[in-house]
């Protein structure tokens, strides 16, 4: 067990509104910080940071009111900063529900403010924001880093490591270190500056500025010793999600609190953290598979809309269809009444079973239940008319193609080649047409069955997967939209 590295989305606010792009598709009001905050919590954010970039004295009341609304809605901690100049400013924000406040310019103007804040509210409430900038003249010709104010436009005489050490001694409980050089570049965190600060303090450091890809996050922790990572635009603009950052960190061996989708929290799992998943075909209602998922697999399924599971034999997360192409589009996730099992309803694009069968389940023959073909009892008895289901036909033909049997008509057709299969489809089509105008219902049903069978054989001969036809049909019905957020 160890402390998780925190992933912190930062929201820039002014006048009580979010002022930079927020591209959550389902927000009613993209400018509402409360709605955005709740959404980030649901996505797995460990903490939020609100920075008032206007921070004029007249707007203090607006910021306090915003903090109060955020505290009402949020069940994770949040830090508020921008324009905190006095113990009274900080007290008003903390009383409104902020967990921590950040100070920057005011602390540089009067370092004793850090001491007074720590004495009044405790070190854990006091985050000192340091906006570092690279300047020439470091030892050995390398850069050195100085603290800046006014968005990096004004340099101070304070060296970042010395300043970090001083505010630590004065009682800062955390350092929010932003590289003003890297900020906005999306080229990665400034690791040398982080390392320089790391060597100067024992309190937690939040790395900020420069994140543009998920790969940028692990080095800030593993190579530069950051305790938390903060980013703004990449989350707001949906370049990637909090969950994606956590997966990248976890894959690099960094401990993180996994992002659990809302509604899937507090499931009853086994000792390995796994919950059973029943997979059901949305179209037919058939049970396809019983498998297992951990929190990460559930999160990925919810996030991508494709079945993700955890393999107990390989001890690894996997996406259904990753190698076979037989992916499953998830239309619904349901939780059992005891919260100890999960149901995925899916639109499968191919067989569910690794044996190539449509479902992993095969009926056990010869048991003394209802005779084959007899009307089922129970709830299903109300609908005795069978639905036309081509899946068994596809299965039988695929089975014959894979394992030819002597005397099989299907195998003979396939052996005679594509042209012969195509010719048969033509003949059967004409016979269907004739039966439709001259024959009775039974004759027509027989001819349609012949045609369907030969179409299935033709598809097998050509190697056309049934899912391609299904996809075509769905596109015509407008069911299928462009896939969103595929990994």
């Amino acid at each position, binding site marked *: 067990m160890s402390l998780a590295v925190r992933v912190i989305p930062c929201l820039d606010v002014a006048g009580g509104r979010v002022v930079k792009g927020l591209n959550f598709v389902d927000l009613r009001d993209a400018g509402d910080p409360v709605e955005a905050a709740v959404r980030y919590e649901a996505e797995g954010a460990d903490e939020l940071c609100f920075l008032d970039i206007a921070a004029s004295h007249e707007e203090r009341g607006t910021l306090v009111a915003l903090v109060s609304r955020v505290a009402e809605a949020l069940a994770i901690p949040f830090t508020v900063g921008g324009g905190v100049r006095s113990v009274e400013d900080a007290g008003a924000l903390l009383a409104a529900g902020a967990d921590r406040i950040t100070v920057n310019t005011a602390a540089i103007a009067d370092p004793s403010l850090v001491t007074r804040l720590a004495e009044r509210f405790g*070190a854990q409430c006091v985050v000192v924001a340091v906006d570092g900038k690279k300047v020439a003249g470091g030892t050995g010709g390398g850069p050195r880093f100085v603290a800046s104010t006014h968005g990096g436009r004004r340099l101070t005489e304070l060296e970042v490591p010395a300043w970090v050490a001083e505010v630590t001694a004065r009682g800062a409980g955390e350092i929010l270190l932003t590289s003003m050089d890297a900020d906005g570049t999306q080229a990665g965190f400034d690791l040398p500056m982080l390392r320089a600060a790391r060597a100067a303090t024992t309190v937690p450091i939040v790395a900020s500025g420069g994140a543009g890809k998920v790969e940028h996050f692990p080095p800030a922790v593993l190579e530069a010793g950051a305790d938390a990572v903060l980013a703004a635009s990449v989350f707001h603009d949906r370049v990637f999600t909090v969950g994606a950052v956590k997966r990248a960190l976890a894959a690099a061996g960094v401990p993180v609190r996994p992002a659990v989708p809302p509604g899937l929290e507090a499931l009853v799992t086994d000792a390995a953290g796994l919950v059973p998943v029943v997979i059901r075909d949305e179209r037919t209602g058939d049970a396809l598979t019983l498998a297992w998922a951990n929190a990460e697999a559930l999160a990925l399924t919810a996030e991508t809309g494709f079945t993700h599971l955890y393999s107990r034999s390989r001890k690894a997360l996997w996406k259904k269809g990753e190698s076979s192409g037989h992916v499953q589009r998830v239309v619904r996730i349901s939780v059992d009444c005891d919260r100890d099992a999960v149901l995925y309803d899916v639109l499968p694009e191919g067989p569910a079973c690794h044996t190539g069968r449509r479902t992993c389940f095969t009926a056990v023959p010869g048991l003394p239940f209802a005779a084959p073909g007899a009307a089922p009892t129970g709830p299903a008895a109300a609908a005795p008319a069978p639905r036309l289901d081509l899946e068994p036909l596809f299965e039988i033909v695929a089975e014959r193609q894979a394992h030819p049997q002597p005397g099989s008509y299907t195998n003979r057709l396939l052996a005679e080649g594509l042209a012969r299969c195509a010719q048969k489809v033509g003949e059967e089509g004409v016979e269907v047409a004739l039966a439709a105008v001259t024959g009775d219902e039974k004759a027509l049903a027989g001819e349609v069955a012949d045609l369907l069978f030969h179409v299935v054989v033709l598809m097998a001969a050509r190697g056309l997967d049934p899912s391609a036809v299904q996809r075509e049909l769905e596109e015509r019905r407008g069911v299928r939209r462009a896939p969103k957020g595929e990994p």
Partner: protein
Amino acid sequence: MSEVVLVDYGVGNTASVRRALERLGAVVAQSGDPERVAAARRVVLPGVGAFAPARERLAATGLEEGLRAALASGARLLGLCLGFQLLFESSAEFGVTRGLGLLGGRVEPFGPGARVPHVGWNRVEPAGSPPGRRILGGLPGGAWVYFVHSFRADGADPADVAAWCDHGGRFPAAVERGEVWGCQFHPEKSSSAGRAILAAFLKEEPG
């Protein structure tokens, strides 16, 4: 509907705790009146900040007597963060201060090598029978909760511990001794895991 008295003794911001309990349907009365506390069935002792001044406030305001009276009449007490630390015998924060002594053990600094303050999400391992006792509300092993503290309890009776955490060594994250409950972490800031714990506190009748 469960009524909860949230002890108001001027130590830290209690708004988040009140809101978290209200979201679960509790009626929360914030009070610094010892008699109101003494008459309560469920009491939450919150707290952020330093141990000694908080301890003095409890004694000087008569709230300590109110808390003891409530417990004597079978009420359930939930101490959170500093309120959790106050349950123990003493604290070594800025000189030794006696605590409420409702639980054995002392509040001590973290061992060398642990980053202090211990800020952020850490995992808790349920203990006791059933694991996590009543207080953890059935949370699975390894659930993540949110901590902010610089000292931790040491020398607690293992029989009182409902969950352990590890930060430079094992320390009690949640305790339950009869109706004396407590969490070092902040359930009101621990998202869904925290909700499970507060719901457990509200669920059954004390006693």
